[in-house]
């Protein structure tokens, strides 16, 4: 009886804590949740597909712009636009996968990098559709069957429900036939294929997943900030996402959460000494790479594992 109360209380606390936070922290929490959705798909591709992708900002942007344009210009209900954003991003992922996923390693990385830049240019130049450098503004508030998520708190719950659902989906996937096959492909694609694993097909599916989650995250972002522009979806972002996952840990749920949290908290890390932000980050990155090959999350897990082994909980 006692053993069940503690985690139950913990969960209740986790659910109601935002009610006590001030506005600023709630917004931090919301952005973190959005980043979790954005990073989950990418983590699957990086950690389980075993390949670089610098195209995540593309999916983020596709979701954001689709949702923004559908709701502002064509007055489509937000929930439909939200889903459309995810679907469109996933579809683009599917189209791209055919030519790109046959490439490996650096070549794949460069191809995704190129796609990211091309997307950015298209968004800036096609101002009839996207509003060009000025972007899209007055993006409506998220509403679901009539209920409007006007307050930050309500949006917080919306975002986190989706974020936790993404994490759960990813975790389920990792612990399944598909997850095992993906890990196998990383070691030996040939051995996996001989056992019946359709490697190319699987990699495509993971890439599409990356697209869908990226697109959904983009839509959530657009309806939160109500104004988006090409500057939000740059190659720098794509690179940052890959780097932050390396720091957080690319094979675990905690790594994604850490990566998302770090991204939101980072700009405020050093307060007065913000100029040293990037320097500190660079040092952190280098240290993590050297001493924690599985990222911070992996490192923490190993420590906890050692602790548990010793105290036998």
């Amino acid at each position, binding site marked *: 009886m006692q053993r069940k109360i503690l985690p139950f209380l913990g969960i209740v606390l986790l659910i109601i804590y935002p009610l006590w936070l001030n506005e600023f922290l709630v917004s931090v929490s919301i952005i973190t949740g959005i980043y979790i959705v954005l990073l989950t798909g990418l983590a699957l591709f990086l950690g389980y597909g075993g390949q670089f992708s610098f195209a995540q900002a593309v999916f983020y942007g596709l979701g954001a712009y689709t949702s923004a344009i559908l709701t502002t210009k064509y007055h489509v209900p937000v929930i439909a636009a939200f889903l459309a954003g995810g679907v469109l991003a996933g579809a683009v992922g599917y189209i791209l996968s055919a030519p790109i996923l046959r490439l490996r390693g650096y070549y794949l990385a460069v191809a995704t990098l190129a796609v990211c830049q091309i997307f950015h240019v298209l968004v800036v130049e096609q101002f009839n559709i996207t509003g060009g450098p000025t972007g899209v503004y007055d993006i409506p508030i998220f509403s679901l069957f009539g209920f409007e998520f006007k307050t930050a708190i309500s949006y917080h719950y919306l975002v986190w429900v989706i974020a936790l659902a993404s994490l759960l*989906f990813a975790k389920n*996937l990792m612990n399944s036939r598909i997850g*095992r*096959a993906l890990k*196998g492909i990383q070691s030996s694609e040939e051995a996996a*294929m*001989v056992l*019946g*694993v359709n*490697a190319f097909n699987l990699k495509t599916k993971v890439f599409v997943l990356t697209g869908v989650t990226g697109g959904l995250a983009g839509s959530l972002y657009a309806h939160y900030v109500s104004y988006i522009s090409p500057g939000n979806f740059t190659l720098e972002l794509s690179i940052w996402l890959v780097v932050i996952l390396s720091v957080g840990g690319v094979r675990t749920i905690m790594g994604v959460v850490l990566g998302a949290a770090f991204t939101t908290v980072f700009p405020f890390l050093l307060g007065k000494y913000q100029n040293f932000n990037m320097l500190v980050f660079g040092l952190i990155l280098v240290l993590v790479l050297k001493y924690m090959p599985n990222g911070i999350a992996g490192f923490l897990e190993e420590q906890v594992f050692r602790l548990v082994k010793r105290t036998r909980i």
Partner: protein
Amino acid sequence: MKMESNNILELKDISKNYFGLEALKRVSFQVDKGTITALIGPNGAGKSTAFNLISGLENPTSGQIYFLGKEITNIEVHERGPMGLGRIFQTPKIFEYLTVLENVMVGIHGRTHAGVLKSGFRLPGFKEEEKLIREQAIENLVFIGLAKEKDRMAGTLSFGNLRLLEFVRALASKPKLILLDEPTAGLTPVETEAFADKLSAIQKTGITTLIVEHDLKFIMSIAEKIIVLNHGQKIYDGSPASIRENRQVIEAYIGTRKENRIHAENT
């Protein structure tokens, strides 16, 4: 075209060229159902190439391959496994980031169906399939004697156990024909004998084995038919008994008497 009913694998006029290098020249042979057949030959004879063609990792330049009476020459790699074709590699290709048990579970991948959506959303049917996969995998591990190591990271196994793991992983896919590429290379004599026992055991369950080997003693003790390749061509196809008298085979392995004399004179 009528296929004999006990013919499980047939290569017909198979040739493979690599930019002018002829790895296989119009090779034809059959493997009979339920047998242990050996494919031998000196290095460079084309044995691994033949295996790559049979399992689909490469495509022949010309010729056809038939499996269970059906032509598989152009069927994709990942479709041949579920048809009943299993294979292990010359250097064990283990999934080192998975546990021993998980490795075997991947072996069952070809016969299961839960896809991305079903797995991610844990739709009905998922749990049952996972349970079956796990149970069968454990059974397989018990058969091969690795059940104790089931939760160990595959990358940490000893070499002998790596070979066994790759073998049982292939068995998990319930193949009708299994291709073994130098399975005893690197094994101690004790391990080799244990392996031979396992081969006899699976033969009793009806599985056909095609094995590439350099250990001639091992081959002689278990193979019912031997096919010899040299320089990409088949030079012998028959029983182990008469192979000792076959001049071509002896020359392929040891060199002609003339070559040996010249070699001796120059050293």
